C-alpha cells in the first residue's frame, strides 16, 4: 500500500451567519494515498470547495466552527496554529483555484509570483528562485519560458494562466495538490490539455491529487476514487469504475443524466434534476436530496447512513432504496428521454 498522506475523518465546517448556522460541510471522510487521484463532484453549494479550503486552513475565522480531524502525515491540521499552517500551505499541500484570471496578481510578473512562493518556503536567493520558476514553466508546457517568465498575467491566455497557477502550486513540490474546478473557466480543448498535464505532473512529482469539479465527465479517466457530495454530505463514494457502472445514489444518476453525451444517441430531452440545492441553514428533514428525488418514499424522512450495500465493500452510498429497484430504474434517468421516433 502506498503511503497514506491525508486522512480526513468526519470533517464538519459550520459558519455562523446573521441568518443562522450554515452547515457547509457536515461529516466528510476520505483517505488519500500517494499517487492517488480523488475526484470530489457536486453542484455549487454542495460543500466541495469548503472541504478543500478547510483542509488548507483557509476557512479559519471567528465565525467558523470545525469538528472532526484532518490528519496529514500523522498531524491534525485542524489543531495546528495559524503560523504553523503557513509551513503546510504551498510546501506540503498546494492548491489551484478555479479562476486563473483573478487568482494571479495583475501587477506582478508571472516569474516574480512563482519565485515568491518558492522563497516563502525555502532559503534560496532570487536568481535561483527565478531559474526554478523558468524550469517550472517549462514543465507545465509554457513555450519559450525564459522570456515568458517576465510577462505579466494579462499577457497570458486563460489556459496559460492556469498552467502558471499549476507551476506555482507545484513550486515547492507539495505532496498533495488540490485542484478546485481547474478547468471550468476554460475551453474544452484547453480543459483536455490541463487535465492531461495534472495527470502527468502527479507522476513526475510523486504527489496525490484532489480534483474538485461539477462535471463527472472531467474525472472519468483521471480519478481513482470519487466522492459525490450533496448539501455538505458525501452521498456516494466509490472507486471510479464502480461509480460509473453501478451508481447507487439517485443524485449521481441525475448528474450523469445531465451531461449531453457524445458517446450515446442524442436523447430527445436531457435529464435535469428538478429544483435547486437546499439551503444549508435549514436542511430538509431526512435525506437532503429527498425533495428533488423522483424515487423518494416514506423512509427517506429518516436520514440514511453512508453504508455499503453492493459489491465491492469500498462502494458506499446514502440511500434507502433497494439495490435491485435501483438497478432496474436508474437507466431512464441516466439515458434521458429517447428521441421520439
Amino acid at each position, binding site marked *: 500500500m502506498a503511503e497514506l498522506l491525508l486522512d480526513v475523518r468526519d470533517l464538519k465546517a459550520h459558519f455562523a451567519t446573521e441568518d443562522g448556522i450554515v452547515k457547509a460541510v457536515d461529516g466528510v471522510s476520505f483517505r488519500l494515498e500517494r499517487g492517488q487521484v480523488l475526484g470530489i463532484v457536486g453542484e455549487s453549494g454542495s460543500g466541495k470547495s469548503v472541504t478543500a479550503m478547510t483542509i488548507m486552513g483557509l476557512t479559519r475565522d471567528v465565525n467558523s466552527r470545525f469538528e472532526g480531524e484532518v490528519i496529514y502525515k500523522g498531524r491534525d491540521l485542524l489543531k495546528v496554529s495559524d503560523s504553523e499552517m503557513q509551513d503546510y500551505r504551498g510546501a506540503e499541500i498546494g492548491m489551484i483555484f478555479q479562476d486563473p484570471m483573478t487568482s494571479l496578481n495583475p501587477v506582478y510578473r508571472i516569474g516574480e509570483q512563482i519565485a515568491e512562493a518558492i522563497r516563502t518556503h525555502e532559503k534560496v536567493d532570487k536568481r535561483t528562485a527565478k531559474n526554478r520558476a523558468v524550469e517550472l514553466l517549462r514543465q507545465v508546457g509554457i513555450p519559450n519560458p525564459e522570456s515568458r517568465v517576465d510577462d505579466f498575467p494579462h499577457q497570458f491566455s486563460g489556459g496559460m494562466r492556469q498552467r502558471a497557477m499549476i507551476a506555482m502550486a507545484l513550486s515547492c513540490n507539495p505532496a498533495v495538490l488540490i485542484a478546485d474546478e481547474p478547468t471550468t473557466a476554460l*475551453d*474544452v480543448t484547453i*480543459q483536455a490539455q490541463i487535465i492531461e498535464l495534472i495527470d502527468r505532473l502527479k507522476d513526475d512529482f510523486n504527489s496525490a491529487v484532489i480534483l474538485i469539479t461539477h462535471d*463527472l*465527465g472531467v474525472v472519468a*479517466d483521471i480519478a481513482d476514487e470519487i466522492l459525490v457530495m450533496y448539501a455538505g454530505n458525501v452521498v456516494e463514494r466509490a472507486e471510479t469504475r464502480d461509480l460509473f457502472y453501478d451508481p447507487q445514489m439517485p443524485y449521481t444518476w441525475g448528474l450523469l443524466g*445531465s451531461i*449531453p453525451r457524445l458517446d450515446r444517441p*442524442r436523447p430527445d430531452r436531457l*435529464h435535469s434534476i428538478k429544483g435547486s440545492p437546499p439551503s444549508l441553514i435549514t436542511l430538509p428533514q431526512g435525506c437532503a436530496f429527498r425533495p428533488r428525488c423522483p424515487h423518494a418514499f416514506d423512509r427517506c424522512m429518516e436520514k440514511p447512513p453512508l453504508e455499503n450495500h453492493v459489491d465491492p465493500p469500498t462502494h458506499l452510498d446514502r440511500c434507502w432504496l433497494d439495490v435491485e429497484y435501483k438497478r432496474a430504474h436508474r437507466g431512464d434517468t441516466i439515458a434521458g428521454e429517447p428521441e421520439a421516433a
Partner: protein
Amino acid sequence: MSEVVQTGVPLIEVREVKKYFPIRKGMMQREVARVHAVDGVSFAVQEGETLGLVGESGCGKSTLGRTIVRLYEPTAGQIIFQGTPIEGHGARQLRPLRREMQMVFQDPYASLNPRKRVGSIVGDPLKIHKLGDKRERKAQVEELLETVGLSPEHYNRYPHEFSGGQRQRIGIARALALRPKLVVADEPVSALDVSIQSQMLNLLEDLQNEFRLTYIFIAHDLGVVRHVSDRIAVMYLGKIVEMSPAEELYVRPIMPYTEALLSAVPVPDPDLAQKRERIVLEGDVPSPINPPGGCRFHPRCRYATQVCMEIEPPLVEYGNGHLAACHHPLNVDSTLAAAAVRSAAGS
C-alpha cells in the same frame, strides 16, 4: 430539434461578413494593425432552425453573434434579415429590427444590472418600444417570468438574490419580452453547473417550440451544441472551417480541427475514456492580428503538409449540405473529394 420551415427566404443570411477591430497607437491614434475577428463568413438560417456556432475562445464566434444582431457594425459584407439588407442601417432604422432579434449573454452575473429590479430588467424592453401601459407591462413580465420557470413574485427582487441558473432565466425572459424571431444565445450555459445546464437546454428547447424561435447558439462545447442544433458551423480564427447537419458532424467530421474538438469533449465513461484516442491540440489559437498564412489551422494540425502552409483551402461541399475547408479531408473517399474540388474550381 425543431421543425424547420423550408421557405425561399431564410430568416437571416450573412454574406462574406467581416469584422475587423483597429489597433491604434501613438498620439495621432494611427491604426497600426487590425484584429481579424471575423474574416469572411457566409451562411443562412431558416425560420425555426437552430444553428450551432462552435470554436475555441478567440475564434470570433461571439463577435460574429454580436455583428449579426448589429451590436457591432460589420467592416464588410451583407447581413440580410427577412430579405432586407440591414448592414448599413443606422440606429433609428435598426430600432424596429431590435424587436425581432435579441441576445442572451454568457455571464449571468455581469449581464444583469445589479441596481435594477427583475421587473424593470425584463420590462424595460417593452417600455423602450412603448408597448402597453404600466399595468399591461407588469402582467406581461409576470407571465414571462412564469414561462421561463421563475415565479411572478420575483418581480420586485434584485439580481443578487438569485442563483446563476435563475439569473440566466431572467436573461432569457428579457430576451423574449419583445417576442423576437431570432435569438442569438452566446454561451448561455457555459457558466452553469451541468445539472443546471441541462435544465436550461431543455427550457430553450421548450421556448423554441412555443414561440417558434430561430436560434443561433454559440458555444465551445460540442456536446452541448449537438443537443440543441439542427446544423453546426465550426469556426477557427474568424472563418467557418466546417458546416454540416448536426448528427453528420459527429459521425463524419471532415476537418481535422473538428475531429480534435470532438475528441476533447470529456466522456463520462471510464473504460471508453481510456480507450478512445484523445487528440490534444497543442498551444492556443494563434493571434487574429496576424493569422497564419495558408490554412489557418496548419500550425496545430497533425495532418499538415507543405500545401497547407501555402494555399488557403476553400470551403467546398461534400454532399448533403456538408461543407469543409481542408486540403486533407478526413472520412471522405477519393471520388467525393475529387467532385468537391471540381465544384469549387467551377464556382
